[in-house]
């Protein structure tokens, strides 16, 4: 089991002072190497859920067990370390660092975990078809190429789990399909589990396991009712 979530709750205090529950997931689990898609509309708490799983956000209550380690029992520094070693993250806006070349962005993905391995970073960029763009800065790359750098970076630390937050949201339909296939392939090659959230049906229908996030997130059910 790479991921196990139990009674996970997260709420935010709204500007008017009222507390609103954003995530209330009773149970969610993923096997190693599994590829799971979560369908959810905008504002349904998908990104918050991924950030809780990644240890970027701290839950109000409940537990996230990642690679056998309960995040709520770890201090922030240890959560950071676990994230650096076990999680790859593909963001909708890619979040590449503009001052760094493609290969340096990939190196950043391993720097805080297993340590920099330039040969592996270059191999990953070759794998995503950017062998001739390694020393380009993000601004010098097309949107599709930036997406591929982001995928290479997410795999750079040999993660057990890759989180993908609307990874094709900024791509046209053709590139979205290509990119999604690439993410899935590379995760499979690297034996990394993939948890993807999206609201795009063309993306979701490619997954054997696709769950409606609203079904597992009680917070949204309460809002809906």
């Amino acid at each position, binding site marked *: 089991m790479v991921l196990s979530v139990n009674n996970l709750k997260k709420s935010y205090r709204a500007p008017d002072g009222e507390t609103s529950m954003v995530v209330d997931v009773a149970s969610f689990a993923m096997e190693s190497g599994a590829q799971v898609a979560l369908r959810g509309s905008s504002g349904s708490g998908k990104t918050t859920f991924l950030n809780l799983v990644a240890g970027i956000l701290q839950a109000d209550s409940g537990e996230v067990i990642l690679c056998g380690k309960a995040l709520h029992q770890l201090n922030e*520094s240890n959560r*950071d370390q676990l994230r650096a070693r076990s999680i790859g993250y593909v963001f909708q806006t890619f979040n590449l660092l503009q001052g760094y070349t493609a290969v340096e962005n990939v190196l950043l*993905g391993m720097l805080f975990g297993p340590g920099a391995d330039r040969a592996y970073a270059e191999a990953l960029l070759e794998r995503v078809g950017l062998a001739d763009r390694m020393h380009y800065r993000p601004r010098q790359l097309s949107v599709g190429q930036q997406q591929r750098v982001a995928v290479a970076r997410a795999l750079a630390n040999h993660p057990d789990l890759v989180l993908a937050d609307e990874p094709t949201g900024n791509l046209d339909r053709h590139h979205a399909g290509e990119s999604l296939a690439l993410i899935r392939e590379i995760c499979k090659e690297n034996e990394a589990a993939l948890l993807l959230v999206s609201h795009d049906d063309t993306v979701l229908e490619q997954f054997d396991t696709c769950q409606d996030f609203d079904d597992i997130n009680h917070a949204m059910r309460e809002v809906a009712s």
Partner: protein
Amino acid sequence: MSGGIFLLVRRSLRQHAFSTIITVLAVGLASGLTMSVFSIQQQTREAFSGGDVGFDAVLGARGSQLQLVLNTVFHLETSPGNIPWSVYEKLKEDTPGIRLAIPYATGDNYFGYRIVGTSTELFSDFEYQKGQKFRFVGDGRSFEDGYAEAVVGSYVAEQLGISVGDHIHPSHGVNYAEGSEHEDEYTVVGILEPTNSPSDRVVWIPIEGIFHMDGHVLKGAGEHYEHHGTHAIPEEHKEVSAVMLSFSSPTLGMNLNQQINMIGKEYTLAFPIGRVMLELFDKIGWVNRIFELVAYLVVLVSGAAILASIYNTINERRREFAILRALGARRRTVFSAIVLEAATIAALGSVLGWLFYGVILFSASYAVRKETGVVLEVFMLHPSLYLTPIGMTLLGAITGIVPAYKAYATDVAENLIPHS
């Protein structure tokens, strides 16, 4: 991990290259200025008060000891007056414990460089520094008493292009004025090797030459005596500006000090020379303290420049920090990277500061040598040359703490989303 921090620092400096360069320049100037102030301060103090000038005391007319020293040892200022030749002779012949007594007479110049009348002992017995006697370039030699011959200091020869065999006409007064040339002509018989001392800026002639110079009035006997023709000048009319003394026993200096300065009222003995000059530095100590204060303020301003240059980028870099944190960077990694970035800017500035220091000291050395003949050593290892860069780098690291804390406190989830 540490390699990771260095990568973050390198990239950040590259990304903000313009502000980095400007800040490094500012720190470099501050650092160079600080090192220069302290180095020049110490070197001038040592050169004018602590250095071995070859004499223990100077005897001259009643007046200021400082003026006497400045006039005779550093060839600056005007002479406070003259003393009879007989005083010199008495000191030389009849005073036990005096190792060397050398007469010194001024009043003329050669294109602004001081002409000093003295005796040949200056070149045969006098040591301008311990164990260092004047040496002549090539086949040059000392002038001979009774001849119209001159020996030229290295700086004068270099500046005026004088060589052995040239003829020179002294001008009246210590400052050059066109049309003030004497009829007398002197043949240059020797050029001195550089001594890096005020002597390099002097033209030496036999003291008799000063007595015989046309237009000079002697008052050794209390009445005006102007020499005409070639006959010998009566001893009682001769006078000198000062007598430079070297003692074989230091107690003699104290005895003479008692007799001449405290009991007597006719003459002044500047003794010991180092103490006299130190009094000058003590009097102008406040100037040094102002320079030091300015240097410290400049350092503080450069620290503020580092703070401003990094602090201003923190807001635009919040997303960068959030991304790094999302990739697993710990808060302390981000904090350390910013502190290291500030320290690196300061360290780079300090390295540049050595260059500025070299330029400032070279210029100062040129100016001081031109005015006094004293040479400041650009490459002298002064503690400020390593303490300033260390202090500056520490200051840089300290100024980095504020922006580093701001980066440290960045909310990851909030800043991962691009803000338009």
